[in-house]
């Protein structure tokens, strides 16, 4: 993954759960590493957690693939620790997230057509 940073977003699909969750958590705002961990944990109700080693390893590779970048903007210095680094989605990262969500949506739709998703049939 670190090596592939071609312009075609679909070349990176499917994403690993960790990468998908990191992209999702940065979709609405910039966050630092711990913020990403917390957001993922809250959003999944604790079902998916990322340790810091795995998190920063993924961030390293995602930056190499140009999915993420370090943000230059800092929040209010009063609230901020200078050692914290913030990450944001790049436009390419957003394309990849869109492509992946689209792919998943497609998948769920197929499952519905074949009535495989019984519990969610109404939605």
């Amino acid at each position, binding site marked *: 993954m670190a090596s592939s940073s071609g312009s075609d977003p679909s070349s990176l699909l499917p994403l690993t759960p960790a990468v998908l969750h990191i992209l999702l958590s940065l979709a609405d705002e910039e966050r630092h590493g*711990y913020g990403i*961990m917390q957001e993922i944990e809250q959003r999944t109700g604790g079902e998916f957690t*990322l340790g*810091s080693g795995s998190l920063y390893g993924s961030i*390293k590779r995602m930056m190499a693939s140009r999915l993420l970048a370090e943000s230059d903007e800092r929040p209010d210095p009063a609230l901020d620790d200078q*050692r*914290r*680094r913030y990450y944001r989605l790049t436009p390419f990262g957003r394309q990849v997230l869109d492509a992946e969500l689209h792919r998943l949506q497609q998948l769920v739709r197929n499952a519905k057509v074949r009535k495989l998703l019984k519990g969610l049939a109404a939605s």
Partner: protein
Amino acid sequence: MSTLRNRVARRLHALLVRSYPSEFRDEFGDQMRMDFGVQLSRRRSGRLWAGTLFDWFISMPREQWDVTRQDLRYAYRTLSRSPLFTLVVVASLALGIGANSAIYTFAHALLFQPVVPDQDGSFVGVMRGNGSGEPVSWPDYVDYRDRNQSFSQLAAVSILPVNFGRGRQSDAVMAEAVTGNYFEAIGIRTAYGRLFSSGECPAGCDSEVILSNRLWRTRFNSDPAIIGRQAPLSGIPATIIGIAPAGFDGTVMPVATDIWIHLSNQRSSNPGLFTDRRARWLGVAGRLKPGVSAAQAAANLNGIDQQLRVSYRYPDGEDRRLSVISTPGVAIPHIRRRIVMLVSLLFFLTGAVLLISCANIASLVMVRASARRQETAMRRALGANQARLVRQSLTESVLLSVLGGFAGLLLARWMTSLLPLLQPPSNDLYSYRLDIFHAGPIVWVFTAAISMVAGVVFGLLPAWSSARSGSILEIRGLDASGRPRQRLHRVLVAGQVAFSLVLLIAAGLFMRSLRETQIIHPGFPVDNGLIAPLNLNLASYSGNEEKGRRFFQTVEDRVAGLPGVLRVALTSYFPYNPGSPLTAVERPGAPPTTAALSLIDSSYIDVMNTPLLAGRTFSKQDTAASEPVALIDESLALQLWPDAHHALGETILLGRGRKRIVVAGIVRSSFGRSLTDSPQPIVFVPFAQNYASTMQLLVRTSDDPGRMIEPVRREIERLDDAVSLSRVRTFQKHMTDLMWPIRVSSRMVVCLGLLAMLLAVVGMYGVIAYSVSRRTREIGIRMALGASRTGILRLIARQGLTLAAWGILAGVPLSLAANTVLSRSLYGIRPVEPAVALAVAALWIGLAVVSSLIPSVGAMRHALASIRDQG
């Protein structure tokens, strides 16, 4: 309390963070620590640690592998850019590693692989002397066996070549003469038939044989019906009672045993061996009782031996200590000891070659690193940290050594496949178990291990030294000092020179030893001589001395009558034959000593050309009816009397029966037990007054003795075709066979020595070329200021000579130490051979000059241009 706990937790977590690659740590380490700090205050510590450790376990190896992969890619790119360098490094490593693996294969098969089924280590060898592994005498063995409380079985074994079959159809095969309990002690059963009975030898047991599975397959076509059948063994009818299980080749690896006979079989031909406590000829091994340790058993045996020492007045100075060794592999102590010596010698030599190749590669890598100095300095300036650069460089070394290891393993396989070429020339005597030498998983592990160690050893020095570079001067290519690195580099090269010197001097000694063994007087003239062993242990001669004597006499007369034959003689012992019989000799009133005993006829001294120093030789007048006489050699005379000439006409007491014999003559001491031993004391007695049923017929020919083998054989066959004749050979062949081990080992050492020299020359050339390249500017300035070409050459050559001189200074004492060990196993070699040492030193000085001149000529060509460019 909780702050203390938090502080400890932070420390532990910081350690975990340290295990990530340095680049990763630099980038994310702070954040990881901060995240952990926040979580520490919010979560229960059990859950936190479980999660953290799990995360570490998953992510750390992945990050490490990521970096390693990058390093490997980088290393692959740089190595493939300089294929010659890669080739030289891999080839020299392969040679070092391959040689070591081959020796390890050899050592593993002989020393670490159990030869007998032994799960619990209770099968042990009993060793006499301080690790010297002397054999044990029969009466001593019987005392140990009967009086000990430690062994469930204590067996004795001796090996001897025997003839199996009749006349020309007979094969010389290897036999183990064993006590009845031997197989029980080892714990194996026969595949067919039965074992020897384990108690005292019942009537007829001395004519029973057990065949090896191999002999049974190849010679009897795996026919189970041969059990109970008769087959002549050295001419005596013997009964085949059993077949050993497949895969069991006896306890004397690497010699494969073909036949087991009962030790009592030796009693009829050599009764003295069973009564003389000084005749040591048995290896002892046994099975410990449950719960008894080797140390306890040794204490037990030594206690018994102490009693024997008192009862039988053993000389005080004798080292009789017994040790009990529990080791797999060759169990017969004195054979094991020889193998251990050989293997250690080989490991020492191949280890030195490996060290030289490591040092060599280290200096090559450093030379190359210096060429890449600018690149390294640039990378440091761009933020690569030292650990990262060391790691990068180490990865490259390990990659090289893994490649070298693979090539080495292939080389080792090839080398072990060559082992059968080393089959001793006397393969009509023994078959060797060369099939046991194959590279199994353990050898692969060994090879992998030495490759890794080699990689780290040669990788660490240059890695450390190159990572320290990075000043701005180096980026501009201006820093020419590099002092500490050069010093390290020089130490490496001087070390290489020293080690190669050791190997070369050893090679010189071996070559000299070989020449000396070929040209020395082995104690008798080897030209135009023939030996025909005559073994009359045949049923038709058994116990019939008169008939035997008639046979020997007729053979002598008939062979003497053949055209081309000058003289013939009979002897019971031919020099350097294995197993010379020993006897006790005593001057009345003095403590006994031991000497070899040889029965000879009246023409022996003449045929063997043994110089007579005093008195007379035997003549036809020495008969059974006349006064018993003996000839003794000078060294024995000196042992018994203060002046050798005093012995003449004196009486000595011979053997256990202390037979009184008059010394009729004194001859020069001519030969030892082996080519490497000093002459051994020997007593000659007339065949006319003593009888043995096994004699050697010696024939002096006027012409090529090889052409007389057939006529002599024919003549003997005409008399009695039951006498086995498979080993008629010339004196020359006898000697060549004896020198086989020296020949083979000298070839090996010479090869290793040349290899070491080649490697060290490459290393020296490397360091001089490196230093010259760094001094190109200086040379240019000197030339511009008017220095002559010769002056510059002298300047550079001095550097090479200094390196060689340091190497020689360090190497000479090292080689002295090594050669003291070598000289113990080499014929006619002193540890100090100034001629050899001088020759090798001179060779190195020459090499140093040549390897200085080549790079300096090139440097002078570019020197002026270089100051123009950089000025």
